[in-house]
Every structure is written in C-alpha cells, then in structure tokens.
C-alpha cells in the first residue's frame, strides 16, 4: 500500500461536504475507518457473531479465538511481554480510570502525590482528581511557552511521596512529543511507576512498552483507524497481579459465594461483562492495516504534511500557532486575532474542511495560555499537502467573512 493513495481505502472520502471534497483534519478527535475494518465488522456480525469466552458452540469458539488473537496482535504490536498485560476497555478514558481506581486503591494513600503535567487531557486528570477524596495530592509539571515540559520540572516536582507519574505521549493541543524515555528513566531511578496516556501517541509513532519500560500505557483504538468504543490498557503484570478488580460482573470472577468473592487473573479480572466482541475482532484489521503501511512510513508522511502545514500557517500574519515544541507530531492548533475558533470552524466547514474548535479537553493548558479556545487541525495518514492548501485558503476566507 502506498500512503499517497490511501484516501481511496477510506469510504468516507467518497462523499462531498457542501459540494466539496471532505478535508478531514480532525483525526485527533477520532480517525476515519478504512474499508477493511468496516467490512470486518459486518462480516463478523453476519457470519461469526457470538459472545466470547463462555459458550462452547462453534460460533462462540470462533469468536473467542478471534477475540484472543487480537489480544496477541496488540501484545506483539506494542511489544508487551505477556498477553495478560493487554486489557480491552471502552477507550483510553476508561483505561486511565481503571488504573486510577484500582492502582489507586492499593498503592495511593493519604498524603501521597500524583505528578501530572499541565498538558494533560481531562481524561488524564479527572480520574486522578477523584483520589483527592482519600487525601492524595496532585501536582502539575509546568509547561513552558513553547509547549514543552522540561525534564527539570519533573525532577523538581518529584518527592518521596510521589506514587505515580502520568503524562501524555503526544499533546493533543500543541502536538508536543514528550521525552518519554527520559522521564521514565528519571522515574525509574526513584522507583516511581509511570502511566503514559498514549491516546495521541499510538496512532502516530511506534510503541515498545518493554523498551520504554512504562508501567501503564493507554490507547484509544478509535483514533488508530479502529472501531469506536474500544480502547486498550497495557499494564505491567507485576502491577496487574496486585491490583484489585475494577468493574464487577460476569466473567471476571473466580468463585462467587454469599460471603466471599475471589477474582480471576488478569486480563479477565479487568474485563467485566460482555465485551465489545465485534470491535475487538475488527481492530485486528486496523493493526494489520497499520503494519502494512509501516509505522516509519506513516511517521515520515505525517511529518512531511505537518512541516508543510506549519510553514504555510506561519505565512499568514493573523495566525498564532500554539506552541513551538522541540518535537511536534500531527497536531497544529492556532488562533486568529479577532475571530473566535468556533467561527473559524464553522466557516472552514463551509469549504468541507473539518477541524475542531474548543479547549480540546485541556482547560488547564488553555488557562495557562490565557485563551478559552483554539482551533485545531490534526493530521492522519489520509491527509495530503493539498488538504493543507485548502485549509489555508479557507482560513483566508474567514478573514474575508469577518472583514479583517
């Protein structure tokens, strides 16, 4: 497969938006799905559907095998050591909630500290915030004017009370690629576990959890060209073994008595209730799709578009690009003096250009920047330089409409 022609693999691009081709620059929000993934969902429902893990009939066996094969594929893709370290969740949000709740219950007590950064998405802040109820303290490593979080910020804010460092792999506002390895090395030297919110990382860069040596890594499958309503939590076996279950229900138990309940081992322990069988099965196709393209090719393609995009936006004096991080991936957020991001998004949409406006679930960062909202164009594998050209033209139209 050649990335240049990849748009044809995504049915969504067949349609016109207001008579114009769709320029989809909202992949950081959720990515579009390739035909192979959509078809796998239909095929599964039409010929193979059954609940997994419980029945012994033919359909159940097939479904269970496919379900568990996806787990193996994910394990291999992110290079986890054990398949038991891969837990399917509803999304990255649920993955982080799971860790905050279950790890929190066992390992975070009154007076303990959790270190986040000012770049974090609400999904990597609110779940930790809940632990304040039991006396935990949340600290934030500050972001600088470029959108970087200096390693010294971590160094200074770590104390002997720090029980967790949780931060985003790639910022969904500034596109900052965090120096993950450096931060983890620092954390390890102090024996502090690390959770990486890989929601924006996984779709844009390769992941090797053993090499990173992170303790937890959260993924949103729907941003990786996979089905909606699915996420993944990678967790080191040593923690998962010691963590209590999260949701209670069918499947996650070992034995249930009136006076006592014992639980299954990971991953079953953390997968209560009927799982998203079709979604998990179809996600195997997303991984294959991804692997066929090659993560290196994806990275270099997206970086090319990104560089071109930043260059073009910079030519426009009215545009203020948010952040200037040492390393940036896939995301360009900006403001235009005199035009609110919502108005930008509405006007762009009239040209078929889909971007997002708002605080992108990063209010702390926006507060710090002194703005309430920004416009965000985010790049996926299907984007091209032409998309950027259309974006820039459309931005010029905003200025015309607003007579500035």
């Amino acid at each position: 497969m050649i990335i240049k022609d990849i748009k044809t693999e995504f049915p969504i691009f067949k349609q016109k938006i207001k008579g114009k081709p769709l320029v989809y620059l909202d992949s950081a929000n959720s990515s579009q799905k390739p035909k192979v993934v959509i078809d796998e969902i239909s095929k599964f429902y039409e010929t193979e559907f059954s609940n997994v893990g419980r029945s012994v009939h033919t359909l159940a066996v097939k479904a269970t095998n496919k379900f568990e094969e996806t787990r193996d594929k994910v394990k291999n893709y992110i290079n986890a050591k054990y398949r038991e370290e891969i837990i399917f969740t509803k999304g990255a949000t649920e993955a982080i909630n799971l860790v905050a709740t279950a790890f929190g219950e066992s390992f975070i007590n009154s007076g303990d500290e959790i270190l986040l950064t000012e770049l974090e998405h609400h999904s990597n802040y609110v779940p930790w915030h809940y632990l304040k109820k039991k006396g935990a303290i949340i600290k934030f490593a500050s972001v600088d004017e470029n959108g970087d979080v200096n390693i010294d910020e971590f160094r200074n804010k770590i104390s002997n009370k720090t029980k967790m460092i949780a931060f985003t792999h790639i910022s969904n506002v500034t596109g900052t690629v965090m120096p993950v390895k450096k931060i983890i090395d620092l954390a390890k030297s102090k024996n502090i576990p690390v959770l990486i919110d890989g929601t924006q990382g996984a779709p844009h860069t390769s992941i090797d959890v053993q090499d990173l040596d992170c303790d937890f890594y959260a993924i949103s499958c729907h941003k990786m060209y996979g089905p909606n309503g699915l996420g993944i939590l990678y967790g080191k076996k040593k923690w998962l073994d010691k963590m209590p279950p999260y949701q209670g229900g069918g499947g996650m138990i070992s034995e249930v008595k009136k006076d006592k309940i014992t639980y299954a081992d990971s991953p079953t322990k953390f997968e209560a209730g009927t799982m998203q069988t079709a979604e998990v099965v179809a996600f195997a196709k997303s991984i294959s799709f991804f692997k066929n393209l090659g993560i290196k090719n994806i990275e270099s393609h997206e970086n090319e578009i990104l560089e071109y995009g930043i260059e073009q936006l910079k030519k426009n004096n009215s545009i203020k690009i948010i952040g200037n991080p040492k390393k940036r991936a896939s995301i360009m957020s900006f403001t235009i003096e005199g035009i609110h991001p919502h108005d930008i998004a509405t006007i762009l949409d009239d040209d078929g250009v889909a971007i997002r406006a708002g605080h992108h679930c990063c209010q702390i960062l926006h507060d710090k920047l002194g703005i309430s909202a920004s416009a965000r164009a985010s790049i996926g594998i299907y984007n091209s330089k032409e998309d950027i050209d259309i974006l820039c033209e459309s931005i010029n139209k905003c200025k015309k409409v607003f007579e500035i």
Partner: protein
Amino acid sequence: MELKELYQEIILDHAKNPRNKGKCEGYSHDAKAHNPLCGDKVHIYLKLDSNKNISGLSFEGEGCAISLASASILTDTLKGKNLQISKKVADDFLNMLKNKTKITLNSLSEDQITTISSLSGVQEFPMRIKCATMAWHTLLSAFDKKN
C-alpha cells in the same frame, strides 16, 4: 450562501462592538452560564425597577461572534422594556431558533425585529444554536434569581 446568512453585517457589528458590556450599575438580578464544550461564557446583569421595568441591562462574556452578538442584541433590545414583555420576547426568540417560527411581536419596533431576526440564520447550523440561545436562557434564569 448560508454562511452569509449566519454572519450578517449586523451580527458582525454587534460581535465586534458589543453594546452594554460590563456590570450595569445597581443591578438587582444576575445569572451566568457557560458552555463546557466550547468555553463560551455569559453573565447577564439587570436592574428591575419597582414597576417591573428593566431599567438596566448589561452582560459580560466571551465567546464566538454568534454568542457575543446574541448577548449584545439581547441587551439592546430589552433595555427599558417591561419584565412580562421581555419574557415574551425571549420565548419568541428561543422559539424562532427551535421551531423556525418568525418574530412578530408588536411590542418590538420593526428595526428591533430585523435585528433580533438576524440571528435566525443560526437555524441552519445546529451546533451553533447553543451559542445563540445561551444569553437568552441566562436572562430567563436571571429573572428568577434576585442578587
């Protein structure tokens, strides 16, 4: 072109030069609202005199052109009007955006009707309706709350 319907001259004028910004002096009622999805904020202040006339009406807020223009037009239209009439206007305005009805109140001048109706273009932009209605909902809740 729909976009021109949305961003009419009159709306851009109100958005760029909002009328009645700030806290009006001696306000007796106020209420605020906030749209967490986009960050739009509005705070309405009003002074109701003993005859139930709105003798002062102003707003503070930030947000998109639609939300600013809507708040500005609201204050401009209702300042000096009676409480009952103002409620009627607000209902009619919200109805216009919800059910695409027209505003035909005889308590408003033709000019005022034109101005207020300029926001009807928002009908075609469902995600922006909240931007246009927020100030009006806030006004209604301000009526219910004494400062």
